[in-house]
């Protein structure tokens, strides 16, 4: 009996602090957010007044909100597509692109070096990368890209000032930062595929293209899925980069608006806490809907090896 009691004492002792912290700072705010979203609270009054679904009705007519939703839709398609294809291409070259030597498939010369270098952007904080690219994207010859364009005789491009280009410039930075991580991720996945599968196919006369599409891709399916889900989660964020990098925080003309940034601005610049929380709830339902769909779609026969 005392042994059992001592065990429960130990369990309580170990769980108390983590649970209190977690419930206080994570769970309770999440629950409160749903309630606050139904009020028109502006942070002044002690008790917020109930506004029903007023905030949600207002959302339906909010141009910026819909622009942000469209941008997340674009990110959801473009980000995984670009990052995964570039990363797959490089990880194939780095791990198997060198053909077979001495009965072993290997990467091209210098693969170790490239794998280290490609990962550099991943260890930098997103906000810092944003500030860096603010300078790199400068519209005159002081910008790193426009400097090169002008030297080659082209017109400089307003990377961040042109509403039709601005969001793509931001996607470009996301891709720049993400590729290295997925190269390493896929390299780990490829290392787990038994070498003799490649040997057999190569001896059978399969070229590099067939090796890639008929062997590597199907056997890497699980890892690809994980990458796709990670990038899709990232597609619902974008806060730090857009906040730091874009003109007027989401501009020009709200062309780079993303929901997290709108939530932050609505809450902490305009003190419309009820409305900001409604946006948060909308964002939550979008993520959950996506997660459920993703789980359904991605279920596929697993290839055992």
């Amino acid at each position, binding site marked *: 009996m005392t042994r059992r009691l001592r065990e429960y004492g130990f369990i309580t002792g170990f769980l108390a602090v983590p649970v209190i912290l977690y419930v206080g700072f994570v769970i309770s*705010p999440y629950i409160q957010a749903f309630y606050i979203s139904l009020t028109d609270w502006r942070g002044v009054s002690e008790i917020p007044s109930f506004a029903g679904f007023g905030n949600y009705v207002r959302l339906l007519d909010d141009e910026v909100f819909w622009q942000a939703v469209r941008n997340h839709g674009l990110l959801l398609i473009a980000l995984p597509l670009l990052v995964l294809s570039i990363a797959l291409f490089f990880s194939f070259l780095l791990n198997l692109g060198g053909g077979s030597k001495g009965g072993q498939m290997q990467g091209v010369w210098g693969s170790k070096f490239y794998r280290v270098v490609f990962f550099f952007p991943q260890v930098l904080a997103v*906000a810092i990368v944003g500030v860096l690219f603010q*300078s790199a994207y400068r519209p005159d*010859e002081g910008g*790193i890209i426009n400097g090169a364009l002008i030297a080659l005789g082209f017109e400089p491009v307003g990377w961040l000032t042109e509403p039709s280009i601005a969001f793509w410039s931001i996607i470009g930075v996301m891709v720049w930062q993400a590729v290295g991580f997925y190269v390493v991720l896929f390299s780990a996945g490829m290392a787990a595929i038994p070498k003799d599968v490649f*040997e057999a196919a190569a001896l059978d006369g399969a070229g590099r293209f067939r090796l890639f599409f008929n062997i590597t891709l199907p056997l890497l399916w699980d*890892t690809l899925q994980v990458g796709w889900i990670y990038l899709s989660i990232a597609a619902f964020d974008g806060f730090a980069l857009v906040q730091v990098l874009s003109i007027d925080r989401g501009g020009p003309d709200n062309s780079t608006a993303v929901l997290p940034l709108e939530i*932050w601005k609505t809450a902490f610049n305009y003190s419309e806490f009820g409305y900001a929380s409604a946006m948060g709830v909308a964002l939550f339902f979008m*993520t959950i809907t996506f997660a459920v769909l993703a789980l359904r779609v991605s279920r596929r026969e697993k290839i055992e*090896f």
Partner: protein
Amino acid sequence: MAIKTENAKSAKTPTRAAHAAPRRRAKPNPLTGLAHAALALWGIITVGPLLWTFLSSFKTNTEIFGNSWSMPQEWRAESWGRAWETAQVGKYLLNTVIVVSAGTFLTMLFGSMAAYVLARYTFPGSRLVYVIFVSGLAFPVFLALVPLFFVVRNLGLLNTHTGLVLVYVAYSMPFTVLFMTAFFRNLPTSVGEAAMIDGASHTRTFFQIMLPMARPGVISITIFNVLGQWNQYLLPLVLLADNKEKWVITQGIADISVIAGYEADWPSLFAALSMAIIPMIIVYVAFQRQIQSGLTSGAVK
């Protein structure tokens, strides 16, 4: 499946291998050249902006607004001094180190304690506690932003490092508990049981036996948390807004980039950026194996 195909092939391999080898040597595949070009290009795209930032910190304002592809005329290091002292990069870096070390240490301590109990003990509600911890992964932090601000304010912890650290710890729990629980479940039970029979308490068994056994997991998740908390921008922006003395590096750099516009001190901005980038690159190159596996272990479980 693999073994079967191997055997089937091996019968006809010798002749083919004999043909293939000399042909390859005689005519180098043009694809290999393209592959190298593509890799080198991406290498330049990755390193280029970082190198350019470093070089720009030695330029003057005029040079910075001139052709971006030129080298600095002379190597002036004054901007580094201004960034460190006037723009307070030194202070921001120190604040970040304080917040991230405290945050990661407490995350790992509390996260492993909770995970250990959830992995190795059965008690009423244990499953529920685990599910609540892990469900946090499904919620975007932006949903909690408004109430979180008021929770921290009501505790009187707004604009303090303590408040930020506690929030970091709380929001790092889901991931840490998920992976540490999986790790503790897979450890052998016999060693811990032997210690208990020898009279060690539950607490002592955890700290002296089980935690050291879980070291590989602890290292991976620590790296993951260090980089995650170092990267944070949203939470400090909301929770430390009014006290510039407490700011972390991401906030500081973003602020310096705004100030650089008013004061026209661009070399300082580049020096500040370099100061934020170089330590991370050095740490990464020194521990690249652990960092790469630490970050990707979350994905390949």
